[in-house]
């Protein structure tokens, strides 16, 4: 952690859905922002600075929208900051917001991640034309499918591990009223029979394209104590934050278990005093847009030795009833407004620590990890939140 203590003192989110046609971009963001402020027992007037993040501006067809949003965010006369770090942006944005408090500059910061993917077609927006990239892939799934195939080859994982992850996350989503996909009839067989999109990724092993926003209020120690006294909900103290990046292509780079992810985890664990992540972390919200990324990140994050992640998934350890519940919210596989997805991971981790997760709450969460990644599995953002002051 940094020089001054910081805690999550309010969270708010929209219902996620394929098309939120009833609200404009400011309307969508305000919905999440006001819920977070209400949760913190604060109003916009109490906020010192606003830190926002989203993925590419082309998705909504608006360049650098922060200036347009100044009034909707209650930011006129205040600092308004915009982050963009690819798919990890929601996590990075939360970390930049935390820096505003850790640095001692501000006491109460509102941070929001969002995307309205219904305005455009994200798959083709991420299929770059020549001269930017060779025309070999279609969408993010096309890019990641070969990495997954390579993981399966290296680890000798059975073919059905991805199906198990998808089934778990989609069933978890039924316990989260905000999740985009609610598929009560989903089964192992229905996932297995869904059509192959990017071999080995099936349709039901793929994230949806969502509209939605997630907001948090971060507070200094005094602000956290005041909000907790007013709301009766304990703060989620930030025990560590870390970001790492590596190039999309570099000689010696391992795209299956990137060094940047390992370094980022080591950094955030060191800050949080975590030496045995499997023992000390109670639950994880992990960025899993394609089912196989659960076992891949379990290894990259050091929860299990390399090649063994699939065994953890297969054993049921990552179920809500397991010893390391992963993505109790339903995860990215059930909800994916790209610019918000990282912040949802960070915010859901905080909700678990605060005991606010409702039907998908895990009992006794004192330490939780939020994880996000982006680009060609090259940008990482993580934080550890806990019930005790760091």
């Amino acid at each position, binding site marked *: 952690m*940094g*020089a*001054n203590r910081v805690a999550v003192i309010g969270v708010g989110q929209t219902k996620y859905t394929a098309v939120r046609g009833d609200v404009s*971009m400011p309307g969508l963001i305000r919905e999440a922002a006001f819920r977070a402020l209400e949760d913190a027992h604060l109003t916009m007037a109490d906020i010192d600075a606003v830190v926002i993040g989203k*993925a*590419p*501006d*082309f998705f909504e*067809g*608006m*360049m*650098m*929208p*922060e*200036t*347009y*949003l*100044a*009034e909707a965010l209650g*930011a*006129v*006369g*205040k*600092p*308004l*900051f*915009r*982050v*963009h*770090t690819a798919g990890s942006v929601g996590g*990075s944005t939360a970390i*930049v917001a*935390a*820096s*505003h408090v*850790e*640095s*001692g*500059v501000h*006491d109460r910061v509102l941070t929001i991640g969002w995307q309205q993917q219904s305005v455009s077609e994200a798959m083709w*927006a*991420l299929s*770059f034309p020549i001269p*930017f990239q060779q025309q070999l892939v279609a969408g993010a799934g096309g890019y990641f499918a070969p990495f997954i195939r390579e993981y399966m080859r290296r680890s000798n994982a059975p073919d059905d591990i991805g199906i198990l992850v998808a089934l778990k996350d989609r069933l978890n989503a039924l316990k989260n009223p905000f999740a985009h996909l609610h598929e009560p009839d989903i089964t192992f067989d229905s996932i297995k029979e869904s059509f192959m999109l990017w071999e080995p990724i099936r349709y039901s092993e793929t994230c949806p394209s969502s509209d939605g926003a997630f907001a948090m209020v971060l507070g200094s120690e005094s602000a956290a104590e005041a909000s907790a006294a007013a709301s009766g909900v304990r703060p989620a103290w930030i025990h560590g*934050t*870390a*970001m790492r*990046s*590596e*190039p*999309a292509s*570099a000689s*010696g*780079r391992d795209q299956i278990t990137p*060094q940047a992810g390992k370094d*980022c985890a080591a950094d955030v664990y060191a800050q949080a005093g975590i030496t045995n992540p499997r023992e000390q972390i109670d639950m994880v919200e992990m960025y899993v847009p394609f089912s196989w990324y659960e076992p891949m990140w379990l290894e990259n994050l050091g929860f299990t030795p390399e090649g063994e992640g699939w065994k953890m998934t297969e054993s049921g350890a990552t179920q809500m009833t397991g010893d390391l519940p992963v993505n109790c919210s339903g995860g990215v596989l059930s909800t994916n407004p790209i610019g918000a997805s990282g912040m949802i991971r960070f915010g859901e981790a905080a909700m678990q620590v605060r005991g606010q997760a409702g039907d998908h709450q895990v009992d006794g969460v004192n330490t939780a990890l939020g994880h996000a990644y982006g*680009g*060609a599995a*090259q*940008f990482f953002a993580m934080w550890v939140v806990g019930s005790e002051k760091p």
Partner: protein
Amino acid sequence: MSPSREVAVVSVAQTPQRRAATELSEVEMIQPAIYQALDQIGATIADIGFTVSGSSDYLAGQAFSFVMTLDAVGAWPPIKESHVEMDGAWALYEAWLKIQAGHADTALIYSYSKASPGDLPRVLSRQLDPYYYGPLWPDSIAMAGLQARAMIDAGLITEADMAEIAQRNRDAALSNPFAQIQGSASVDELLSQPMMSDPLRRHDCPPITDGGVAMVIAAGDTARKWSDRPAWIRGIDHRVDSHNFGARDLTRAPSIAIAAEKAGVSAGKVDVAELHAPFTHQELIVRTELGLADDVLVNPSGGSLAANPMMAAGLLRIAEVANRISAGTADRGVAHATSGHLLQQNLVCVLEGE
């Protein structure tokens, strides 16, 4: 609680600021500046605790354009890194926060754009309210024209005053080898030119520029090790005004006055000011809101009227003030950066030698 660490600009480098860097990709364009900024202090990327950049996908014409530009840094082994879709001055702000928070002692900041492939004034219209302004496609020059007209109508400025501002900035750029426009015609000649967007003539508008800037900042003793005369950041703050231009007094930019007060502009004598005022009339708004005395040297680099690389022109102002402080030609200076149309969002940074 208040930020407690001493942080200084210790090295800056910029690309030549040009109308069109046609033969260069963005990586090829910015990489020499990044490495020059590091080489000048004998540092490598391994010595840098945090790296952060500013750029815009809309100018690059591609989603996630900054991902490829990371190649210019040499981010291997992996680095602590972030990116803002804002001018590099705000990237500097993020780096300054990181150092204040104790997460780093040193930082590399860079920002850049190639505006030349597109129709920049029209591209910038996509930054406007998409319901009320955007459908009219008012370009950045037409928008600025409304503001200049409000200034003239209020009796605050004349077309001749504006031409004098253009002449002073462009003549100042004669001593700036990186500037795109160096030297000016006389005020009378400028005023004889046709209108571009009444009351703005070509000289009232910034050039369209491809280019970038890189900077290294460091805390305390590391700054003193890397620079004989670091440019200490004594205050830095940014604020935003309303986007409802029709409901705002366009002759004012209240966010600049707030940022100036928070950054402590008036706490000492200002020797030099570099103002990010892309249009001539905006220089008067910025210097008025900052409360600068008449004897302050403004834009000795030529400012953004002589070179205006989008996403970098704000950070470039801070770099120019830092250069003057490190060179010993100024003791205390103010730099200003802006974002959006009509000076809507503003950052103010106070730098000082010791």
